[in-house]
């Protein structure tokens, strides 16, 4: 078995909403969706990245007290979480496809030094950069 980072989690405002976004709009797959009382462990995967899971976790009990959960929700909603980067083969085509599905883009595709990048947010407010790496000479 290979070693490395297996799960990185995001805080989302609503796990059902996040699931619909990452699966139905971005094309990720559900890896694990397990509930235990109020707690729900939910992870998704990029279809081309089977060794990595993106966790979609909701702030709240039993992990957080009410004030901490509120703070986490506010931080996410303000877009203050660090940016995530999605590597794509064709940024402009993906932009068109995702825009048609109702993804909230914050930046149209732009050419920068041979790369093409665009920006979008998930429903919770987490910012993504979608980057197509240019061919290196």
């Amino acid at each position, binding site marked *: 078995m290979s070693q490395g980072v297996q799960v990185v989690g995001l805080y989302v405002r609503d796990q059902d909403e996040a699931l619909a976004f990452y699966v139905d709009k971005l094309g990720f797959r559900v890896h694990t969706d397990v509930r235990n009382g109020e707690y729900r462990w939910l992870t998704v995967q990029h279809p081309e990245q089977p060794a990595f899971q993106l966790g979609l976790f909701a702030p709240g009990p039993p992990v957080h007290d009410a004030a901490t959960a509120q*703070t986490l929700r*506010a931080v996410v*909603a*303000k877009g203050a979480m660090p940016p995530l980067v999605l590597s794509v083969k064709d940024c402009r085509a993906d932009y068109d496809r995702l825009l048609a599905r109702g993804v909230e883009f914050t930046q149209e595709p732009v050419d*920068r030094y041979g*790369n093409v990048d665009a920006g979008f947010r998930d429903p919770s407010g987490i910012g993504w*950069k979608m*980057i197509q790496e240019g061919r290196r000479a």
Partner: protein
Amino acid sequence: MADDFTHQDPELLRRLLRAKDRMDAASHERWPVQRLARVSGVSEAHFARSFKQAFGVPPHRYLLTRRIERATALLRDTDLPITDIAFQTGWESLGTFGRTFRDITGESPSAVRDRARGVAQSLARVPACIVSAAQRPDLTTAVSEKRRREADAITDADDKEVR
């Protein structure tokens, strides 16, 4: 329980973020408060205060930092004349651009152009879109106050439009 001042409703914050994103995407455009309020679904009366509460800076000042950030990137990455950069980033006169630029960065546009080119190499491995945000000017003093103090003669529609 936390009071209302420190904890804004996350749903409101998410909508305020949308107004911030729109300014980010088109900082060269005019952003009067009614336009921003509409994006956020907030009344004009509450928008500026809510925005400042959420992001620590009033919307018009936020817009200025974004314009300076873009201008700095253009100074660094292109050979465009400074006049062109001023108009492309949303100022209506070169004089206003130069003064606001110096107010915020402490340097003239041409000095920033010279210096930025010197350090460009070391940032080559960070995605360009993120480098740009990292180099955003940090506004710790109120530009509008400084401006009022030193420049009665200057008319600056850009600085006032979203107040």
